């Protein structure tokens, strides 16, 4: 990283024509109660996973991987900003209100996103499942009748494609690498697999919004997810873990205390110094 010699690039910081969270705030679109709840739920997933991943900063096995994981964490935090900004329009709340000043039981993140990083294998296993889930979700959401959600999905899906690629590359290398690396990714998959079903569970909110062509029914994403995961694992000479599914928490956070610990770390600063800027 010593030099940065590309022509006229070192100082170029264009956003291009990409969507920004400020754009979403300025669109003037006001989400209905249901749409806001849906957007917040998607945002919760991205927030939890991004927060978990950001723990790796300064701790990843190599500096380059440190930056890769941090990039993905930042992408996810960006998705959270879009989704919370939009959700907030229904309740007159800012993205920060939703991230920092809601209680544990008000979040609707899937437990997969909240699972502990463990070792690198465990983190990559979680990334594989989460990224493929999000790829299916945002691809389907491109056709949402809600224009803001469709625009957010269009921005997110490009980034998630990269997250999928990152996870794929590592699953292949761990699976086909050494005995130890294969063991690590197998253990990681075994640890994360019980939380797959919850991702694809249709809640009442999904059903109501899907009827209007706004939300994606999670169950409709399952077949493609299974097919894609199987393909990667086959190529990496790994098996889909034969492990029972965890009892459904329906995204309430029941049966798990992990969310509270994540939020404690995430929220403490904003709560201790409300309105602080830097």
């Amino acid at each position, binding site marked *: *990283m*010593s*030099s*940065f*010699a*590309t*022509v*006229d*690039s*070192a100082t*170029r*910081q*264009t956003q*291009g024509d990409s969507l920004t969270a400020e754009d979403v705030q300025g669109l003037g679109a006001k989400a209905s109660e249901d749409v806001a709840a849906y957007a917040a739920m998607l945002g919760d997933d991205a927030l939890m996973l991004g927060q978990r991943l950001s723990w790796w900063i300064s701790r990843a096995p*190599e*500096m*380059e*991987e440190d*930056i*890769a994981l941090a*990039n993905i964490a930042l992408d996810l935090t960006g998705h959270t900003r879009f989704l919370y900004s939009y959700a907030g329009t229904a309740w007159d709340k800012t993205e920060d209100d939703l991230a920092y000043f809601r209680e544990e039981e008000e979040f609707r993140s899937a437990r997969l996103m909240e699972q502990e990083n463990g070792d690198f294998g465990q983190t990559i296993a979680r990334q594989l499942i989460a990224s493929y889930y999000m790829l299916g979700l945002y691809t389907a959401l491109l056709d949402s009748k809600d224009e803001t959600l469709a625009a957010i999905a269009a921005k997110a899906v490009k980034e998630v494609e990269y997250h999928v*690629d*990152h996870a794929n*590359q590592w699953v292949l*290398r761990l699976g086909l690498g050494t005995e130890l690396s294969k063991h690590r990714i197998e253990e990681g998959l075994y640890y994360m697999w019980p939380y797959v079903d919850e991702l694809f569970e249709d809640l009442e909110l999904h059903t109501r919004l899907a009827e209007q062509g706004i939300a994606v029914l999670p169950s409709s994403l399952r077949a493609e997810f299974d097919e894609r995961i199987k393909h990667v694992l086959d190529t990496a000479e790994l098996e889909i873990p034969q492990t029972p599914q965890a009892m459904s928490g329906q995204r309430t956070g029941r049966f798990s205390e992990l969310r509270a610990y994540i939020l404690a770390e995430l929220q403490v600063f904003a709560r201790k110094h409300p309105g602080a800027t830097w």
Partner: protein
Amino acid sequence: MSDQQHWPMWEVFVRSSRGLSHVHAGSLHAPDATMALRNARDLYTRRNEGTSVWVVPTEAVTASDPDSKGGFFESASGKNYRHATYYEKSEGVPHL
């Protein structure tokens, strides 16, 4: 940990837009070429630079010896006749 093998090093070349050549941007560590390209994307194309990225194993680069700089490059200086500085501009030639 002491016998942990380090990833090999790669040199990264980025082309910032069509028509320009690839320019050396820096180096990085990666386990193989595919991952090197991914890492290069993360490290060197974060601010919209780049329409194309090359990665080359550092060990494949043969470099000039910095210590023999004198002998290697010096002889070119002082030979003004190698530069087209003695030509007089012809009268009446526009845009030169």
